[in-house]
Protein backbone atom coordinates (compact mmCIF):
# COMPACT_ATOMS: atom_id res chain seq x y z
CA UNK A 1 0.00 0.00 0.00
CA UNK A 2 1.43 3.34 -1.00
CA UNK A 3 1.79 6.01 1.60
CA UNK A 4 3.71 8.62 -0.41
CA UNK A 5 3.84 9.85 -3.99
CA UNK A 6 6.65 12.38 -4.18
CA UNK A 7 6.89 15.01 -6.91
CA UNK A 8 10.46 16.33 -6.68
CA UNK A 9 11.29 19.48 -8.60
CA UNK A 10 14.73 18.29 -9.68
CA UNK A 11 16.80 15.17 -10.27
CA UNK A 12 18.89 15.93 -7.18
CA UNK A 13 15.78 16.11 -5.04
CA UNK A 14 14.56 12.83 -6.54
CA UNK A 15 17.88 11.13 -5.73
CA UNK A 16 17.69 12.43 -2.16
CA UNK A 17 14.18 11.05 -1.73
CA UNK A 18 15.21 7.64 -3.13
CA UNK A 19 17.78 7.25 -0.35
CA UNK A 20 14.81 6.49 1.88
CA UNK A 21 13.63 3.73 -0.48
CA UNK A 22 10.70 3.70 -2.85
CA UNK A 23 10.46 3.32 -6.58
CA UNK A 24 11.40 5.89 -9.20
CA UNK A 25 8.59 6.38 -11.71
CA UNK A 26 8.94 8.10 -15.07
CA UNK A 27 5.91 7.52 -17.30
CA UNK A 28 4.56 4.76 -15.10
CA UNK A 29 4.16 2.22 -17.89
CA UNK A 30 6.36 -0.30 -16.09
CA UNK A 31 5.99 0.75 -12.46
CA UNK A 32 2.23 1.38 -12.30
CA UNK A 33 1.21 -2.12 -13.50
CA UNK A 34 3.24 -3.45 -10.55
CA UNK A 35 1.67 -0.94 -8.19
CA UNK A 36 -1.81 -1.79 -9.50
CA UNK A 37 -1.44 -5.54 -8.92
CA UNK A 38 -0.22 -4.93 -5.39
CA UNK A 39 1.90 -8.07 -5.71
CA UNK A 40 5.07 -6.30 -4.60
CA UNK A 41 4.60 -4.03 -1.59
CA UNK A 42 5.96 -0.54 -2.12
CA UNK A 43 5.69 2.33 0.32
CA UNK A 44 6.51 5.31 -1.88
CA UNK A 45 6.87 6.47 -5.45
CA UNK A 46 9.21 9.23 -6.62
CA UNK A 47 7.72 10.67 -9.81
CA UNK A 48 9.88 12.53 -12.35
CA UNK A 49 6.90 14.34 -13.87
CA UNK A 50 7.84 17.71 -12.34
CA UNK A 51 11.62 17.17 -12.18
CA UNK A 52 12.38 19.22 -15.31
CA UNK A 53 14.05 16.32 -17.11
CA UNK A 54 11.97 16.38 -20.29
CA UNK A 55 13.92 18.83 -22.44
CA UNK A 56 15.22 17.80 -25.85
CA UNK A 57 17.96 19.98 -27.34
CA UNK A 58 19.64 19.49 -30.69
CA UNK A 59 22.63 21.71 -31.46
CA UNK A 60 24.08 20.86 -34.83
CA UNK A 61 24.69 17.13 -34.70
CA UNK A 62 24.74 16.92 -30.92
CA UNK A 63 21.46 15.90 -29.30
CA UNK A 64 20.61 15.75 -25.61
CA UNK A 65 17.39 14.11 -24.51
CA UNK A 66 16.12 14.47 -20.95
CA UNK A 67 15.46 11.13 -19.30
CA UNK A 68 11.84 12.02 -18.60
CA UNK A 69 11.11 13.09 -22.19
CA UNK A 70 8.39 10.78 -23.49
CA UNK A 71 8.80 8.49 -26.48
CA UNK A 72 6.15 10.64 -28.18
CA UNK A 73 8.27 13.79 -27.52
CA UNK A 74 11.24 12.13 -29.25
CA UNK A 75 9.11 10.94 -32.17
CA UNK A 76 7.69 14.42 -32.72
CA UNK A 77 11.04 16.25 -32.64
CA UNK A 78 11.92 17.34 -36.18
CA UNK A 79 15.68 17.07 -35.69
CA UNK A 80 15.29 13.50 -34.42
CA UNK A 81 13.10 12.31 -37.30
CA UNK A 82 15.52 9.42 -37.96
CA UNK A 83 14.31 7.93 -34.65
CA UNK A 84 10.63 7.99 -35.64
CA UNK A 85 10.64 4.39 -36.99
CA UNK A 86 12.14 3.29 -33.67
CA UNK A 87 9.50 5.12 -31.64
CA UNK A 88 6.65 3.81 -33.81
CA UNK A 89 7.85 0.24 -33.29
CA UNK A 90 7.35 0.56 -29.52
CA UNK A 91 4.02 -0.17 -27.80
CA UNK A 92 0.98 1.94 -28.80
CA UNK A 93 0.41 5.72 -29.06
CA UNK A 94 -1.21 6.04 -25.59
CA UNK A 95 1.68 4.19 -23.95
CA UNK A 96 4.21 6.24 -25.94
CA UNK A 97 2.56 9.39 -24.57
CA UNK A 98 3.62 8.29 -21.07
CA UNK A 99 6.68 6.06 -21.48
CA UNK A 100 9.98 7.88 -21.04
CA UNK A 101 13.40 7.60 -22.64
CA UNK A 102 14.95 6.78 -19.25
CA UNK A 103 12.43 4.03 -18.62
CA UNK A 104 13.11 2.53 -22.03
CA UNK A 105 16.82 2.43 -21.20
CA UNK A 106 16.34 0.48 -17.97
CA UNK A 107 13.35 -1.73 -18.76
CA UNK A 108 15.34 -4.63 -20.18
CA UNK A 109 14.86 -6.76 -23.27
CA UNK A 110 12.72 -7.81 -25.13
CA UNK A 111 11.42 -4.29 -24.42
CA UNK A 112 13.59 -1.21 -24.72
CA UNK A 113 13.95 -0.86 -28.49
CA UNK A 114 15.04 2.76 -28.17
CA UNK A 115 17.86 1.51 -25.95
CA UNK A 116 18.99 -0.71 -28.83
CA UNK A 117 18.99 2.32 -31.13
CA UNK A 118 20.88 4.38 -28.55
CA UNK A 119 23.52 1.65 -28.25
CA UNK A 120 24.05 1.69 -32.02
CA UNK A 121 24.35 5.48 -31.81
CA UNK A 122 27.04 5.13 -29.13
CA UNK A 123 24.92 7.33 -26.86
CA UNK A 124 26.16 8.32 -23.41
CA UNK A 125 23.80 8.09 -20.49
CA UNK A 126 24.03 10.56 -17.60
CA UNK A 127 23.27 9.11 -14.16
CA UNK A 128 23.02 11.16 -10.98
CA UNK A 129 23.86 9.48 -7.70
CA UNK A 130 25.17 10.30 -4.24
CA UNK A 131 28.69 10.81 -5.66
CA UNK A 132 27.56 13.18 -8.38
CA UNK A 133 27.02 12.60 -12.09
CA UNK A 134 28.57 9.72 -14.01
CA UNK A 135 28.34 8.98 -17.72
CA UNK A 136 28.08 5.45 -19.08
CA UNK A 137 27.35 3.69 -22.35
CA UNK A 138 24.05 1.90 -22.94
CA UNK A 139 25.56 -1.60 -22.75
CA UNK A 140 27.18 -0.95 -19.35
CA UNK A 141 24.20 0.92 -17.91
CA UNK A 142 23.13 -0.10 -14.45
CA UNK A 143 21.13 2.21 -12.23
CA UNK A 144 21.33 1.86 -8.46
CA UNK A 145 18.29 2.20 -6.22
CA UNK A 146 19.12 5.78 -5.24
CA UNK A 147 20.32 6.90 -8.66
CA UNK A 148 18.42 8.91 -11.25
CA UNK A 149 19.02 8.66 -14.96
CA UNK A 150 18.96 12.28 -16.09
CA UNK A 151 19.81 12.54 -19.80
CA UNK A 152 21.10 10.83 -22.92
CA UNK A 153 23.61 12.42 -25.28
CA UNK A 154 24.11 11.30 -28.86
CA UNK A 155 25.25 12.40 -32.29
CA UNK A 156 22.60 12.55 -35.00
CA UNK A 157 23.88 10.17 -37.71
CA UNK A 158 24.64 11.39 -41.22
CA UNK A 159 21.89 10.94 -43.75
CA UNK A 160 21.91 7.43 -45.22
CA UNK A 161 23.96 5.88 -42.42
CA UNK A 162 21.09 4.88 -40.10
CA UNK A 163 19.40 1.47 -40.23
CA UNK A 164 16.66 0.05 -38.02
CA UNK A 165 14.42 -3.01 -38.08
CA UNK A 166 12.29 -4.62 -35.41
CA UNK A 167 10.85 -8.07 -35.94
CA UNK A 168 7.72 -8.70 -33.88
CA UNK A 169 4.71 -10.97 -33.86
CA UNK A 170 2.45 -8.31 -35.34
CA UNK A 171 2.97 -4.93 -36.97
CA UNK A 172 2.26 -2.81 -33.89
CA UNK A 173 2.47 -3.01 -30.13
CA UNK A 174 4.51 -6.12 -29.50
CA UNK A 175 7.85 -6.85 -27.89
CA UNK A 176 10.95 -7.64 -29.91
CA UNK A 177 11.70 -10.98 -31.44
CA UNK A 178 14.85 -9.36 -32.80
CA UNK A 179 15.62 -5.63 -32.97
CA UNK A 180 18.46 -4.43 -35.19
CA UNK A 181 19.83 -0.88 -35.13
CA UNK A 182 22.97 0.18 -36.95
CA UNK A 183 25.12 3.09 -38.05
CA UNK A 184 27.08 2.14 -41.15
CA UNK A 185 29.10 4.83 -42.92
CA UNK A 186 30.69 4.30 -46.30
CA UNK A 187 33.66 6.25 -47.70
CA UNK A 188 35.64 5.64 -50.91
CA UNK A 189 33.44 2.66 -51.69
CA UNK A 190 34.08 0.74 -48.48
CA UNK A 191 32.58 0.64 -45.00
CA UNK A 192 34.52 3.04 -42.75
CA UNK A 193 32.37 2.80 -39.64
CA UNK A 194 29.98 0.10 -38.43
CA UNK A 195 28.11 -0.11 -35.16
CA UNK A 196 25.42 -2.78 -35.02
CA UNK A 197 23.25 -3.22 -31.92
CA UNK A 198 20.83 -6.06 -31.30
CA UNK A 199 17.81 -6.35 -29.03
CA UNK A 200 15.55 -9.22 -28.01
CA UNK A 201 18.55 -11.47 -27.48
CA UNK A 202 20.03 -10.78 -24.05
CA UNK A 203 18.77 -8.90 -20.97
CA UNK A 204 20.60 -5.77 -22.20
CA UNK A 205 21.04 -4.62 -25.82
CA UNK A 206 24.26 -6.04 -27.25
CA UNK A 207 26.67 -5.02 -29.98
CA UNK A 208 27.50 -7.44 -32.80
CA UNK A 209 31.30 -7.01 -33.03
CA UNK A 210 31.87 -9.97 -35.35
CA UNK A 211 29.34 -8.62 -37.84
CA UNK A 212 30.88 -5.14 -37.60
CA UNK A 213 34.35 -6.58 -38.38
CA UNK A 214 32.99 -8.34 -41.48
CA UNK A 215 31.66 -5.03 -42.81
CA UNK A 216 34.68 -2.82 -42.09
CA UNK A 217 36.86 -2.15 -45.10
CA UNK A 218 34.53 -3.98 -47.47
CA UNK A 219 32.09 -2.65 -50.05
CA UNK A 220 28.61 -2.23 -48.54
CA UNK A 221 26.96 -4.73 -50.86
CA UNK A 222 24.73 -7.78 -50.59
CA UNK A 223 27.51 -10.44 -50.28
CA UNK A 224 29.23 -8.48 -47.50
CA UNK A 225 25.96 -7.80 -45.70
CA UNK A 226 24.99 -11.48 -45.92
CA UNK A 227 28.35 -12.48 -44.43
CA UNK A 228 27.93 -9.89 -41.68
CA UNK A 229 24.39 -11.10 -40.98
CA UNK A 230 25.67 -14.67 -40.46
CA UNK A 231 28.46 -13.38 -38.23
CA UNK A 232 25.91 -11.55 -36.05
CA UNK A 233 24.99 -14.92 -34.49
CA UNK A 234 28.47 -15.28 -32.99
CA UNK A 235 28.52 -14.99 -29.23
CA UNK A 236 24.75 -14.52 -29.03
CA UNK A 237 22.59 -16.69 -26.75
CA UNK A 238 19.05 -15.52 -27.46
CA UNK A 239 16.24 -15.15 -24.93
CA UNK A 240 13.54 -17.78 -24.66
CA UNK A 241 10.20 -16.17 -23.77
CA UNK A 242 6.52 -15.99 -24.65
CA UNK A 243 7.22 -13.90 -27.76
CA UNK A 244 9.65 -16.33 -29.40
CA UNK A 245 11.85 -19.28 -28.57
CA UNK A 246 15.61 -18.93 -28.38
CA UNK A 247 15.80 -21.36 -31.30
CA UNK A 248 13.58 -19.14 -33.44
CA UNK A 249 15.43 -15.95 -32.54
CA UNK A 250 18.73 -17.59 -33.42
CA UNK A 251 17.33 -18.69 -36.79
CA UNK A 252 15.85 -15.34 -37.79
CA UNK A 253 18.55 -13.03 -36.43
CA UNK A 254 20.66 -13.10 -39.63
CA UNK A 255 17.55 -12.55 -41.75
CA UNK A 256 16.64 -9.38 -39.89
CA UNK A 257 20.21 -8.06 -39.81
CA UNK A 258 20.28 -8.48 -43.60
CA UNK A 259 16.85 -6.87 -44.06
CA UNK A 260 17.80 -3.96 -41.81
CA UNK A 261 21.05 -3.22 -43.62
CA UNK A 262 19.68 -3.71 -47.14
CA UNK A 263 16.39 -1.93 -46.42
CA UNK A 264 14.40 -4.99 -47.52
CA UNK A 265 10.76 -5.49 -46.59
Amino acid at each position, binding site marked *: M*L*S*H*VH*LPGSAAEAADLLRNGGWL*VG*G*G*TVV*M*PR*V*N*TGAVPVD*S*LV*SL*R*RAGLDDITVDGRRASIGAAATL*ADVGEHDALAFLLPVI*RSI*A*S*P*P*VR*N*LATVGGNLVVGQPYGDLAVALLALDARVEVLGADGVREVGVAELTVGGAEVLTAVHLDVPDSGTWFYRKAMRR*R*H*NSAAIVTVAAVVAVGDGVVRQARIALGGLAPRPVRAPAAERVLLGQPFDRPTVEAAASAARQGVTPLDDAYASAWYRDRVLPVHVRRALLGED
Partner: protein
Amino acid sequence: MPSRIVTLTVNDADHELIATPGLTLLAALRDALGLTAAKRGCAQGTCGSCVVLLDERAVPACLVPVETVDGAAVRTLEGVAAGGELDEVQSAFLDGFATQCGFCTSGMIMAAEALLADNPSPSRQDVVEAISGNVCRCTGYEPIVAAVLDAARRRAGRTA
Protein backbone atom coordinates in the same frame (compact mmCIF):
# COMPACT_ATOMS: atom_id res chain seq x y z
CA MET B 1 1.56 11.04 4.08
CA PRO B 2 -2.02 12.25 4.17
CA SER B 3 -4.18 12.39 1.10
CA ARG B 4 -3.88 15.42 -1.13
CA ILE B 5 -6.39 17.67 -2.78
CA VAL B 6 -5.99 17.47 -6.55
CA THR B 7 -7.54 19.83 -9.07
CA LEU B 8 -8.48 18.62 -12.53
CA THR B 9 -10.30 20.28 -15.38
CA VAL B 10 -12.44 17.44 -16.67
CA ASN B 11 -14.53 18.02 -19.79
CA ASP B 12 -14.10 21.80 -19.30
CA ALA B 13 -15.36 21.79 -15.70
CA ASP B 14 -13.07 22.30 -12.71
CA HIS B 15 -13.10 19.58 -10.07
CA GLU B 16 -11.35 19.09 -6.77
CA LEU B 17 -10.94 15.66 -5.33
CA ILE B 18 -9.17 13.97 -2.44
CA ALA B 19 -6.44 11.67 -3.69
CA THR B 20 -5.10 8.90 -1.48
CA PRO B 21 -1.43 8.15 -2.30
CA GLY B 22 -1.19 6.33 -5.64
CA LEU B 23 -4.83 6.85 -6.63
CA THR B 24 -4.87 6.48 -10.41
CA LEU B 25 -6.42 8.99 -12.77
CA LEU B 26 -8.84 6.22 -13.74
CA ALA B 27 -9.96 5.65 -10.16
CA ALA B 28 -10.27 9.40 -9.66
CA LEU B 29 -12.52 9.73 -12.71
CA ARG B 30 -14.67 6.71 -11.98
CA ASP B 31 -14.86 6.59 -8.21
CA ALA B 32 -14.42 10.23 -7.16
CA LEU B 33 -16.08 12.03 -10.08
CA GLY B 34 -18.55 9.35 -11.16
CA LEU B 35 -17.39 9.43 -14.77
CA THR B 36 -17.59 5.74 -15.61
CA ALA B 37 -17.16 5.77 -19.40
CA ALA B 38 -13.44 4.96 -19.06
CA LYS B 39 -13.36 1.29 -18.11
CA ARG B 40 -11.12 -0.57 -15.71
CA GLY B 41 -9.89 -3.48 -17.83
CA CYS B 42 -6.39 -4.77 -17.20
CA ALA B 43 -4.91 -2.06 -14.92
CA GLN B 44 -1.66 -2.73 -16.81
CA GLY B 45 -1.88 -0.20 -19.67
CA THR B 46 -2.34 -3.09 -22.07
CA CYS B 47 -6.04 -3.17 -23.00
CA GLY B 48 -6.75 0.51 -23.72
CA SER B 49 -10.25 0.46 -22.23
CA CYS B 50 -9.34 3.35 -19.88
CA VAL B 51 -7.84 5.66 -22.52
CA VAL B 52 -8.70 9.32 -21.92
CA LEU B 53 -7.13 12.55 -23.16
CA LEU B 54 -4.69 14.05 -20.67
CA ASP B 55 -3.70 17.55 -21.80
CA GLU B 56 -5.01 16.52 -25.24
CA ARG B 57 -2.94 13.33 -25.46
CA ALA B 58 -4.40 9.83 -25.31
CA VAL B 59 -3.12 7.95 -22.26
CA PRO B 60 -4.15 4.84 -20.35
CA ALA B 61 -5.62 6.47 -17.22
CA CYS B 62 -4.78 3.39 -15.13
CA LEU B 63 -1.05 4.19 -15.37
CA VAL B 64 -1.21 7.78 -14.11
CA PRO B 65 -1.03 8.52 -10.37
CA VAL B 66 -3.48 11.42 -10.22
CA GLU B 67 -1.34 13.41 -7.78
CA THR B 68 1.31 13.70 -10.51
CA VAL B 69 -1.08 15.49 -12.89
CA ASP B 70 -2.57 18.03 -10.51
CA GLY B 71 -3.91 20.92 -12.60
CA ALA B 72 -4.19 18.93 -15.83
CA ALA B 73 -7.00 19.06 -18.37
CA VAL B 74 -8.73 15.73 -18.95
CA ARG B 75 -11.28 14.77 -21.57
CA THR B 76 -13.34 11.64 -21.24
CA LEU B 77 -16.00 10.12 -23.47
CA GLU B 78 -18.60 12.00 -21.40
CA GLY B 79 -17.12 15.24 -22.72
CA VAL B 80 -17.16 14.30 -26.40
CA ALA B 81 -20.83 14.79 -27.20
CA ALA B 82 -21.28 18.58 -27.24
CA GLY B 83 -24.69 19.64 -25.97
CA GLY B 84 -25.93 16.06 -26.03
CA GLU B 85 -25.26 15.67 -29.76
CA LEU B 86 -23.07 12.71 -30.69
CA ASP B 87 -19.93 13.84 -32.47
CA GLU B 88 -18.71 12.42 -35.80
CA VAL B 89 -16.74 9.59 -34.21
CA GLN B 90 -19.58 8.52 -31.95
CA SER B 91 -22.17 8.64 -34.74
CA ALA B 92 -19.87 6.76 -37.13
CA PHE B 93 -19.41 4.04 -34.48
CA LEU B 94 -23.16 3.87 -34.01
CA ASP B 95 -24.04 3.79 -37.71
CA GLY B 96 -21.23 1.37 -38.57
CA PHE B 97 -22.04 -1.17 -35.83
CA ALA B 98 -18.54 -0.64 -34.47
CA THR B 99 -19.56 -1.60 -30.96
CA GLN B 100 -20.78 -4.92 -29.69
CA CYS B 101 -20.36 -5.45 -25.95
CA GLY B 102 -19.16 -1.83 -25.65
CA PHE B 103 -16.43 -2.35 -23.09
CA CYS B 104 -13.64 -1.14 -25.41
CA THR B 105 -15.73 1.56 -27.07
CA SER B 106 -14.88 4.45 -24.77
CA GLY B 107 -11.14 3.86 -25.11
CA MET B 108 -11.45 3.27 -28.85
CA ILE B 109 -13.31 6.53 -29.36
CA MET B 110 -10.85 8.53 -27.24
CA ALA B 111 -7.89 7.01 -29.16
CA ALA B 112 -9.70 7.94 -32.39
CA GLU B 113 -10.38 11.48 -31.15
CA ALA B 114 -6.66 11.93 -30.42
CA LEU B 115 -5.77 10.64 -33.88
CA LEU B 116 -8.25 12.86 -35.73
CA ALA B 117 -7.27 15.96 -33.75
CA ASP B 118 -3.69 15.40 -34.87
CA ASN B 119 -4.34 13.96 -38.32
CA PRO B 120 -7.75 14.88 -39.80
CA SER B 121 -7.37 12.63 -42.86
CA PRO B 122 -5.68 9.46 -41.65
CA SER B 123 -4.87 6.47 -43.81
CA ARG B 124 -6.15 3.04 -42.86
CA GLN B 125 -2.65 2.26 -41.54
CA ASP B 126 -2.71 5.39 -39.38
CA VAL B 127 -6.00 4.25 -37.85
CA VAL B 128 -4.68 0.74 -37.19
CA GLU B 129 -1.63 2.21 -35.46
CA ALA B 130 -3.76 4.65 -33.43
CA ILE B 131 -5.92 1.87 -32.00
CA SER B 132 -3.08 -0.66 -31.68
CA GLY B 133 -3.16 -0.23 -27.90
CA ASN B 134 -6.91 -0.88 -27.66
CA VAL B 135 -8.14 -4.43 -27.41
CA CYS B 136 -11.57 -5.40 -28.76
CA ARG B 137 -12.71 -9.00 -28.26
CA CYS B 138 -15.98 -8.70 -30.20
CA THR B 139 -15.76 -6.93 -33.51
CA GLY B 140 -12.58 -8.17 -35.12
CA TYR B 141 -11.62 -4.47 -35.43
CA GLU B 142 -12.76 -4.05 -39.03
CA PRO B 143 -15.96 -2.10 -38.23
CA ILE B 144 -13.96 0.08 -35.81
CA VAL B 145 -11.30 0.94 -38.40
CA ALA B 146 -14.05 1.66 -40.93
CA ALA B 147 -15.91 3.86 -38.42
CA VAL B 148 -12.82 5.97 -37.65
CA LEU B 149 -12.19 6.49 -41.37
CA ASP B 150 -15.88 7.33 -41.80
CA ALA B 151 -15.67 9.81 -38.90
CA ALA B 152 -12.74 11.54 -40.60
CA ARG B 153 -14.81 11.92 -43.78
CA ARG B 154 -17.83 13.20 -41.83
CA ARG B 155 -15.68 15.74 -40.01
CA ALA B 156 -14.05 16.89 -43.27
CA GLY B 157 -17.52 17.24 -44.82
CA ARG B 158 -18.77 19.33 -41.93
CA THR B 159 -15.88 21.79 -42.00
CA ALA B 160 -15.61 21.95 -45.81
